[in-house]
C-alpha cells in the first residue's frame, strides 16, 4: 500500500458549531483508521485568523492541509502560497478559484430536495397552499444557496408557492427567534417555516409557539441535521416534519479520503460531493443511533446514499 499522510491540518471556519464538531468527529475517526492525526485550528469566523491558521500549519509542515473557508474569495492567495510550499490542500465547503479539489455537500440541491418534499407535504396536508417564511443567513453563500434551492424545489410541486418573508436570522437561535417573532406577527398566514440550519428552523418554530399558535397547519423544515436538536424536535414537535440532513460525519470522512488521495498524488476529481438527503418523520432512525446525548451514524445506510455527480448550483452561480 502506498504510504499515507501522518499529520493532517484542518482549518475550520467555525469550529464550535455542532455541524463542524461532527465533521471533525468524522475526520478524526477516519484518520485514526489510517494511523494519522488531525490537528484543528479554528478561524472562528475571522477571515484574518483563517489565513494565520493556515500559515501556521504550513510552518508546522503538516502533510496535507484541509480548509473550510470562512469566505471562498478570501483563501485565493492562501492556495497560491500553499502551492509555493508544495502543500496539498483539500477544500471543504465551496469551490475556490485555483483549487485542486473540493469536498462539499451541494447546498442548493439539499435545499431543493427538501423543498420538493415540503411541496408534496403541503399538497397533501396544507391544502396546496405554501406561504413560506425563510429564516435565512445572507451572510454566507452556502446558506443562501439552501434557501434558493428550497424555494425552487417547492415550486416544482406548488408553482404559486410564495416566499412571504425572507429573513436574516443570523444563523443563531436567539436572533432567529427574534426576527421570526416580528415576521409572524405581521403575516399570520405563514404556514411553512424553512431554516437554513437547525438553530434557524427551531428559532422560527419557537417564535410560532411563543405567539401561542397551534401547530396543526404548520410545516417546519430544518437543514443540517448536525446534532440532537432536530431529532428532539421531530420527536416532540408535531409540525417539525422534514429535515434536510447533510451528514457531517460523512463529509468529514470523505474529506480525509480526498486528503489521502491527494497526498498519494492520485487523480482526484475537482468536485467530490458528499451525500445529503431529506428525512421525513422517523427516517432519522435509519441513519443514526441515539443513546443519551450521543448519536452514532449508521455508516451502511449513509454510505448507501448516492450523491449527485455535480451540484445543480454553486456559489459561483450566485454572482450572476
Amino acid at each position: 500500500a502506498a504510504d499515507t499522510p501522518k499529520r493532517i491540518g484542518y482549518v475550520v471556519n467555525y469550529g464550535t458549531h455542532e455541524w463542524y464538531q461532527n465533521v471533525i468527529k468524522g475526520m478524526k475517526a477516519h484518520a485514526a483508521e489510517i494511523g494519522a492525526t488531525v490537528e484543528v485550528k479554528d478561524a472562528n469566523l475571522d477571515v484574518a485568523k483563517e489565513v494565520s491558521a493556515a500559515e501556521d500549519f504550513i510552518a508546522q509542515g503538516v502533510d496535507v492541509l484541509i480548509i473550510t473557508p470562512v469566505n471562498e474569495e478570501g483563501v485565493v492567495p492562501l492556495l497560491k502560497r500553499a502551492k509555493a510550499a508544495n502543500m496539498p490542500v483539500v477544500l471543504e465547503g465551496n469551490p475556490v478559484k485555483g483549487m485542486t479539489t473540493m469536498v462539499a455537500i451541494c447546498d442548493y440541491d439539499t435545499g431543493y430536495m427538501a423543498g420538493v418534499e415540503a411541496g408534496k407535504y403541503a399538497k397533501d396536508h396544507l391544502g396546496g397552499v405554501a406561504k413560506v417564511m425563510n429564516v435565512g443567513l445572507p451572510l454566507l453563500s452556502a446558506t443562501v444557496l439552501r434557501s434558493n434551492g428550497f424555494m425552487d424545489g417547492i415550486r416544482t410541486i406548488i408553482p404559486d408557492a410564495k416566499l412571504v418573508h425572507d429573513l436574516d436570522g443570523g444563523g443563531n437561535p436567539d436572533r432567529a427567534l427574534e426576527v421570526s417573532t416580528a415576521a409572524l406577527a405581521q403575516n399570520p398566514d405563514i404556514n411553512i417555516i424553512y431554516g437554513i440550519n437547525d438553530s434557524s428552523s427551531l428559532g422560527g418554530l419557537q417564535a410560532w409557539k411563543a405567539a401561542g399558535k397551534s401547530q396543526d397547519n404548520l410545516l417546519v423544515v430544518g437543514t443540517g441535521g448536525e446534532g440532537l436538536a432536530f431529532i428532539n424536535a421531530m420527536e416532540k414537535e408535531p409540525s417539525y416534519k422534514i429535515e434536510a440532513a447533510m451528514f457531517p460525519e460523512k463529509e468529514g470522512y470523505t474529506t480525509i479520503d480526498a486528503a489521502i488521495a491527494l497526498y498519494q498524488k492520485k487523480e482526484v476529481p475537482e468536485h467530490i460531493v458528499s451525500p445529503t438527503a431529506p428525512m421525513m418523520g422517523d427516517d432519522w432512525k435509519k441513519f443514526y443511533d441515539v443513546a443519551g446525548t450521543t448519536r452514532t451514524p449508521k455508516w451502511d445506510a449513509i454510505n448507501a446514499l448516492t450523491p449527485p455527480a455535480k451540484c445543480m448550483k454553486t456559489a459561483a452561480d450566485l454572482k450572476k
Partner: protein
Amino acid sequence: MPPSVSLGRSNRLGAGAVDAFAVLTRRSDITLVVALIVLIAFFAFTAEYFFTLRNLTNVLGQASLAMIAGIGVAIVFISGEVDVSVGSLQAAVAIPLIVIMNHTESLTLGLAGALALGLAIGVVNGYLSAYVGINSLIVTLGMLFVLRGGVYLYTGKTAIPDDVGLDSFFALGNESLFGVVPYPAVVAFVLLLVFMYVMRHRPFGRMVYAVGGNAEVARLAGYPVRWVKFVCFVISSLLATISAILLASRLGSAVHLSGLGFEFQVVAAVVLGGVSLSGGIGSLFGMALGVLILSFLSNGLGMLDLATEWQLVITGIIIIVAVAFDELKRRRA
C-alpha cells in the same frame, strides 16, 4: 471619574521618557516584557514547531495588523477619547481598494482610494467627537454599525474578488523581506518606531498626552485641544486603513466579513499594553508588547492543538491576570 487602568504610571518618569532605556525600565512595561519572554519560553518547550524562525516571523506578520491599528487606537486613547470603529473600517476601505484596482489595474490608485475613504471616516469621527463634542465611544460605536451595515448593503454580503491579481498587491501581505520578515511586520515596525518617536520627542506627541491627561490644563497652556483630538482620530483611521490594505492583500479580495470583532482584539491589546482608558497614560511600546503577547498566545495555543474553547478561556484569564498583576505591583511601589 471615567474608568481607568493606570498602568505605565510611575512616580518618577525617567526624564519624561527621554531615552528608550527609560521606557524599558518603566515598571508596567517591564512586566509585559517579562510576560512575553515567559510566554515564548513556555511555548518553545511545549510546542514542537513553535520556536522556528519560520513560525516566529509568521507571528510577527500576523501581529502586525493589530499592531498597526493599535498604534492609532492607542494614540486616540492617550488623547482621552476612544475609537472602536476600526473593525468595520477594515471591511469598508478594502472595497474602494479592490474595486478601483479591478477597474484601473493600478495598485497606486487603489491604495489612494482606500486611504481616501479611511481619511473621510477619520474626519467624520474626529469632527463629531472633537468639534461637535459627542462622546467618542458613541460616535465610533455608531460608525462601527453604520460602516458594517453599509458594507453589507453595498456588497450584497458577497466578497469582491481581486480580478487583476497584481503581483505587487499580492506581495504586500503575503511575501517577506529577504524571504524572512513578512512585509506587514516590516510596515508595522517602521510605523511603530515613527510614532514612538513622535509621541516622545515631538511637541505634537506631548500635546496628545497633555490633552488626554487634562484637557482643561492643555487649553490653558494654549493648546488647540479640539484640533489635537481631531488629528488623533484621523491618524487612527489612516493606520487602520493601512492594516486593512495588508489584510485585503492576504485575502486577495474585499471580504465583507473582515474585521468582525477586530476592534475588540485591538482594544484588549492596547489596554493590556498599559494604555489608560481615561487618557494621558500609556506608551506605544507597551501597546506593542500587548499585541505581541496576544498574538504569540494565540499562535502557541494553536500549536498545542488546543480547542478554541480552551484558547478563549486561557486568553481571558491571562488578560485579567496580567492587568491585575501590574495594578498590584503599581500599588505596592
